[in-house]
């Protein structure tokens, strides 16, 4: 049974056009997750005090992008006032760009399988811009992940999962409740 399955998978993989199809699927996955991640920064900024504390020292107007090389999707975010605004898809004159080398480097992080620290350690991500500010952004990404991903996943992808008090759990609920409207708002 296993052999039959393996042969079938190999057969599908050898079909002409399969690599392009596979790449299209990966592109769609990355693009979808980034479309959620962008608005998630805004929502977490609204409901999570430790996120606002983390970004309070950032200079106003700091722009950063996440993208997938070589021609994958990208999003840009900006610090405005006491929160982060999602500026939409594409690179919009960012000061700092964090680029995944390819879809296979991006997907584990975007799908909540690997943490950003692991991605940095494995040289899967390139940084253009100030490395100290990148560290600050990385901590903010970790807070977003902590409020976006289920507890079990958070324990796996962060070096240390934050302690979730009753208030944090309520805030997590607010993030989930606010996420869909935020994503929809940016889509229309």
């Amino acid at each position, binding site marked *: 049974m296993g052999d039959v399955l393996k042969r079938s998978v190999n057969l599908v993989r050898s079909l002409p056009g399969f690599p392009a199809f596979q790449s299209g699927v990966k592109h769609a996955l990355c693009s979808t997750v980034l479309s959620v991640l962008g608005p998630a920064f805004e929502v977490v900024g609204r409901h999570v005090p430790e996120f606002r504390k983390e970004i309070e020292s950032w200079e106003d107007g700091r722009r950063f992008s996440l993208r997938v090389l070589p021609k994958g999707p990208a999003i840009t975010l900006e610090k405005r006032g006491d929160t982060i605004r999602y500026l939409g898809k594409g690179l919009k004159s960012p000061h700092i760009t964090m680029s995944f080398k390819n879809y296979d480097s991006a997907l584990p992080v975007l799908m909540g399988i690997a943490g950003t620290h692991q991605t940095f*350690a494995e040289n899967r991500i390139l940084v253009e811009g100030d490395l100290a500010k990148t560290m600050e952004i990385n901590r903010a990404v970790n807070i977003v992940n902590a409020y976006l991903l289920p507890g079990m996943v958070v324990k796996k992808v*962060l070096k240390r999962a934050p302690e979730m008090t009753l208030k944090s759990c309520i805030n997590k609920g607010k993030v989930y409740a606010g996420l869909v409207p935020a994503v929809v708002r940016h889509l229309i």
Partner: protein
Amino acid sequence: MIPHYYQHFCPVKILSGHNAVSNIPYEMDILGCRRAMVVTDKGVADAGLINLVREAFADSDKEIGYVFDETPPDSSNRLVNKLARLFEREKCDCFLAVGGGSALDTAKGANIVISEGTDDILSLQGNEIIKKELLPMIAVPTTSGTGSEVTKVAVIYNEEKNVKMAFASDRLYPRVAVLDPRMTMTVPPKLTAATGMDALTHAMEAYTCLQKNPIDDVFARAAIELIRKYLVRAVENGRDEEARLGMANASLLAGIAFSNSMVGMIHALAHACGGVCHAPHGMANAILLPHGLEYNISGIPRPIAEMSGMLGSSIEYMEEKEQAMVTVSLVRNLLGRLNQISGLPVRLRDVGITEDKLPAIASAAINDGAMAFNPVEVSYDEALEVLNKAY
């Protein structure tokens, strides 16, 4: 344990041994170079070490185009721009960096400016941003600690913005590293101790940080064992050529290891001590090393325990954490011994750091790139706690 994924790269040709400097003109020939720009500092020049380099060129058709000996302890963007203009004016075709980390970083910085054709080096900070092939660089370290001769990193101070800029690229590796024991003979005992502990910190962090991998483990192990054997000897007797060469090799091996495996919280804290209070990097690393190891025991007791064997302890039938504490105490013993024989400071307060600066150091440390590779999460409060212990 085999990591999920790792990379290892070191394209540097290594020449190690007595009179290794004599081979520089031959190496220039292989690289297709004719006229070298020597980048060094006043201390190295005054110690007569550049004369050893000049002598190597005496019977060669290769030449030294210019000797730039104005490298300060911290390289700057203004300086690398000036050096790049000098390089072009003097029609040199390769860099010959002779010195400690600063001379090597200055040459790397000027090389970026020339090869990328820019005078705005700020736009190229980050990792793997440099796209163009750099000119050949030959590195001759005169201290045994930084490992810059085999690393892909350069740190340049930005005078306008008052920040240190970090550049990391596979293109930044020198083409040749020359380890000649004569070049480190004049280093005074205290500096020998500090740079040696810097090398030990590189090796120990490479062996314990997130990008730890089987290849770099080999380099880190070899470095730790050489340091155990030769550091005290080199400090006690600077003219001990075998010990000097042993330490030069240890520094290089640790450099290869950490250039791939990276370093963690100890370096992040030491960089911040340097940035906020200008504490010497090697000394800050030496002081913070046992504290950083102790902090990380909670997350990675096994590799820390393994290092006790490399430092000369027998592996007892202990719990991993207990054995890891043996490693920490062996490092403390070494630090104490170096303090006795060379006056190497053992507390942060002894390297010009005042207590009121500790919060600023902790803030800077958690934003240091090295912190990303530490195996255990370090918050501001935890960084401050470690600093207080080391104070």
